[in-house]
């Protein structure tokens, strides 16, 4: 353990030093960038720069507008939900938009936020309201709409999923990258092909298995399905990563007489921390807004994604059908995920390149 801690500290120190070096390099680069810009100023370059920035701004607009709309929908009181003084809730589901509608009988009539007269994708601060959130978090008339319980249930799924996926796929990935054994090729092929069968057909069987063992509405059992589903892909990622890590360290350890387990725990695991982090983040994020699988097997005790989908995916006549609530809840869950994704950008790029290029 002591050795391991030492190795970890060493590794961390090295990482910090490398980062500092990188920062320094960038600083120099940036300085030279401005210097070059001023020195080699030409009209042609100026025009190119303007075009580039105009293009970028246009792209930003395309990216930002729908997101702004999502945000303003979540925080605007559009009269869809009114909390009365006596504590009751009034749902205003009338169509406030008097404009002519094209009613297509074929098209599943889905409610649109537009029906509430909400138009601006620039937030209207005078209409700022937390009514939607109040409704989302307090509506528990039916147990299958209890957002808080669903949140903690999903948290459980995500946590267990993270632990198991990281453990299993790392072990398998190490085995596939570091050891030779009989049937390795066959096992790799099996991992690869099994996950290509359309998942819905499997879901019917999973439902059958769950009913046989009485596992419906059991979040632990749900997690195991996620784990089994996530292992193949992540195994390939770990394998791809580990192949690029020099073998000299573990070979040296083996010569020193370290056992298989010692090599695994003290050498390989510290080396693989970045990729394990990448897998952990992905595994923690994935269950939050998954819909199809939990909607089938977690009817009574839904996860967050199932509840949110109920607010938007139902029929028009349904009382709780209210896309504004969906927007609010989706934002609530999506923002942390977004932040982590942005923060982990580098690892994600790294995971993508290892996972993608090396198979």
């Amino acid at each position, binding site marked *: 353990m002591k050795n391991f801690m030492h190795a970890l500290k060493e590794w961390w120190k090295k990482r910090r030093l490398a980062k500092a070096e990188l920062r320094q390099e960038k600083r120099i680069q940036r300085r030279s*960038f401005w210097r070059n810009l001023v020195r080699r100023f030409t009209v042609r370059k100026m025009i190119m720069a303007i075009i*580039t920035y105009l293009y970028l701004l246009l792209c930003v607009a*395309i*990216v*930002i507008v*729908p*997101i702004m709309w999502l945000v303003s929908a979540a925080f605007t009181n559009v009269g869809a939900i009114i909390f009365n003084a006596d504590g009751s809730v009034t749902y205003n589901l009338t*169509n406030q*938009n008097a*404009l*002519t*509608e*094209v009613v*297509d009988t*074929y*098209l599943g*009539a*889905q409610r649109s*936020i*537009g029906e509430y007269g909400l*138009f601006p994708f620039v937030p209207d601060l005078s209409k700022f309201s937390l009514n939607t959130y109040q409704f989302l978090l307090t509506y528990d008339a039916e147990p299958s709409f209890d957002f808080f319980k669903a949140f903690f249930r999903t948290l459980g799924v995500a946590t267990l999923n993270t632990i198991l996926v990281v453990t299993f796929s790392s*072990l*398998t990935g*190490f085995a596939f990258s*570091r050891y*030779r054994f009989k049937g390795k*090729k066959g096992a790799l092929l099996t991992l690869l092909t*099994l996950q*290509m*069968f359309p998942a*819905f*057909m*499997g*879901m*019917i*069987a*999973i439902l*059958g298995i769950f*009913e*046989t063992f009485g596992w419906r509405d059991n979040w632990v059992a749900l997690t*195991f*399905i996620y*784990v*089994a589903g996530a292992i193949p892909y992540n*195994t390939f990622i770990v394998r791809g990563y580990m*192949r690029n890590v020099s*073998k000299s360290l573990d070979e040296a350890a083996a010569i020193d007489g370290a*056992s*298989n387990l010692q090599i695994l725990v003290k050498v390989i695991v510290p080396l693989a921390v970045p990729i394990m982090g990448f897998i952990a983040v992905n595994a923690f994020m994935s269950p939050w*807004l998954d819909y199809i699988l939990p909607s089938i097997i977690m009817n009574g005790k839904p996860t967050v994604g199932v509840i949110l*989908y109920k607010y938007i995916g139902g029929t028009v006549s349904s009382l709780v059908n209210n896309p504004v609530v969906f927007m609010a809840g*989706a934002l609530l869950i999506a923002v942390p*995920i*977004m932040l982590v994704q942005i923060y982990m*950008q580098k690892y994600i*790029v790294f995971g*993508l*390149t290892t996972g*993608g*290029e090396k198979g």
Partner: protein
Amino acid sequence: MQNNISKLGQFLLKVLKWIYNHTIYAVYSFFRKIVQGLIRMVKDWKANPVAFRRGLRSFFIPGWGQYKNNQWYKAIPFFVFFLLVLTVELATSRYLKAFTEIKNYPIVTQDMIEGGAFYQAYRTQGTIVNGYMITAEDIEAEGDYFGEYRQAGDFAFVDNIFNLLDATDVSATGDFYQSPYQAGDVTKKGDLSPYMLTASDIGTSGDYYQSLFEIGDVGIYIVSNQDVAANGAYFETYRKAGDRIAYVVTAQDLLPVGAYFETNRAIGNIIKYIITSEDLAVGGLYEGSGKAVGDIVYETLTAGNIDDYSGYLIAGDVVGGTLLLAPQVDYRISGDIVWDTNINGYRQLSSANVANGASYYQSPRQAGDIISADGINKPVLMTQALVADQGLFFGSGYSQGMTVPYTLTVEDVSEGGNYYQSFYARNDSFYVPIDEFDILPNQIDIKIEEGVYRRALGVHADNASDRIYFFRDYGGWFTKGIWGLITLGQIPTKVNDQSSWYRGWPIIVFRSSSQMDYPAWVEADNSTSLLTNGVIVLVVTLILLVLFIGNVSDAYHSQKLYEQTGKIEDPKKWVRRIWDSYFSYIIVLPTFLLIAFFTLIPFTFSFLTAFSSWTSRVSVPESLINWVGFSGFAQVFAGNGVNFKYFGNVFIWTMIFAIAASLTCYIVGMIQALVIQSKYVVAKKLWRTIFILPWAIPSLVTLLMFRNIFSAYGGLANQVIDSFGGTDLLIQIKGILYSLGLYGQEQAGAFSGQYIQWFGLVNYKLGRLLIIVINLWIGYPYFMLLITGSLTSIPSDMYEAADIDGASSLQKTRFITIPWILRATTPVIITTLTHNFNNFGVIYFLTGSVPATYTWTAAGTYTNIGVPNSAPSIYDILISWVYRLAMLTTVREYNIAAVYSIIIFMMVGIFSVYNLSRVKSFWEED
């Protein structure tokens, strides 16, 4: 050209060879290795007789060979494991009871002694004597069991489930008076016994007051065993005991059978009397009474006036406090089937026929009419026998091309019927598309002969018989699991259908706690759970088989090792050796167990489903699923090629979508990456962060948001257009879209100021374009990140060399950057292609898999495989169509969905495995 063709041929040959090498040949060589090992072992027998014997011992009892090898530490685990498996099998089985049960068919013997329920009861149809089930013929006058009493050992009904009718039941006051049942009959408790309505029943306070029933009606009639026996009313008809049938009014029914029919008036009766003019005349009964003609008086009959009012009791009289009512005339109602002399056949009356002024208005029911059994539902659909000279749906109002539900009648499945000896059973219902033959006279046979439904999707049910299914009744977890997988069940039932028997018991569907005293086999087989269990058992058995082979091989090799070295390996060394040399297996093991259970089992299940007849129309567990081989695959080409046309159209759209979605994302991603990395841009990280936002938001949120934005019901897109330019702009945009060929022409009011329907049926080109664009919005950041990553890996000396050669920045991009990126990311494009091929989320969440009707031609609606709503939506790609087929409540064509799944799997799997095989590093052993 010639060259190209031969190149293509070579390539295809290479692909085929590769596939062969990695599938058939791989399996073949795997088994060859096992067989070779076995042969070697047997050959070595003479050389190593002891080792061979050790292996043989372990083959019979795991652990025995190890014990003989003096390796107790191996012997014990193997043996314990063996015991465990054995215990599971035995504990879940009923083997121990099998012998006595099969030999004796034990029944509660107290029933046989005097006073018992079956004392001197006749052996009836269905009773089992020494393993033989008595048939209707056996208890006829010349049958083998005629007039025999039941004896101990007979297998028959027991008292707590069935009523034994006694003399009081069939007496005038009993429940079964004038029923077809007799004393000594056994009827099922809770069954509706035929009940003849009395005057009080239809009185104002009676249960049948103002109902459609009249005095003498029999509410519902259940055919009894007697009815189907010789001399019975339904002897040698198609009816079986337990059938519920519409009741035919006979001549007897029309006779007054009321309690007071032709009863003389007696002293004490109160009679209703209407005063006539004679009564008021001089000498009349009411002379000078002040009454008028037509007045009603009630007279109590006494000895003095009985002569004046002698005669039969009539309606209006009061007897013992009960007012006698006039029998109402029993008019025909719509739904009745009557004999029409004009067509010399039966016809079913419609509401128009009995309306005021129509030919059957207030026409009384007559003998020979067929009336509804329960007075509410119409009688079963007219069968061909009833409309002998017409098509099945002739004059029904249905038109060609419609799909209608059809329920098989007894006639249909009996000899001479259209479904005689087909897989179908009586009461099965399915959808029949009506073709021109059905609505024309005399052509029905042709239609049925060519029916594809019959074989491919047939609901086959072995009729419960007197056979004993040993593993079904007695098997343990393993044997019963394998039995279930092979047969998918053998005993079906219909709810409340007394004709479903097995070994003397009526088959029930669900077991409630009150039914726990039934034996285990009374429950009907549930094919789906048998399939699930069977697959679980199969996988577990395979894992156990590997252990078993390991056990035998260990016993053999350990002895051989001992003979070579003269030393017995001690436990510590053994553990050490296993840990060291099998370490990789050990750390991989948990993963593979998990995958075996949560991926392999579902996979096998779905794979097998494709070869079964499982659809929602097989009402499990009343009916059974069947193995039907490749019939499901034949469905892809069935229906005059309509199914294949669907498949082809969906496949083409899937390919277009997959390629377009992947390429657009790749190209835009590359542009973004190159622009951000260009020397003009400062704050690269900020720009990149903004641009990866669409990818960072969970896709469920994004897709549902876009669905809302492009809603035809005032989504953001429509509102933005509306607020900027109002109706004019809407029309203008529609015009532009129209000139691009994207906007619908047929739609009424398409060019008015109505909102644009982005995901419409007619405008499907617009919707499809939008799908690709929205997918681009979500998907480009992935490639942007990926390409940014590989841009940084371009060695800078390449650019420096280019600078020395005087290359422009455009040239550098063209000749260095892009080739580098392409080389580095080609495998990812192909992975993305397969991902998009199965990109269920984009289609399902964006369009909801609607419009449900699929219109490739100008007009008309289609259904696939004869099932409504099963046709793909205009936006469906293969995977979302499979979802519709398997998951949509009204469809649930599990087997067809599995067939398409296998097709998708083959295409995607072979494509991507072949693709990976070209990536050298994937297979490199290091």
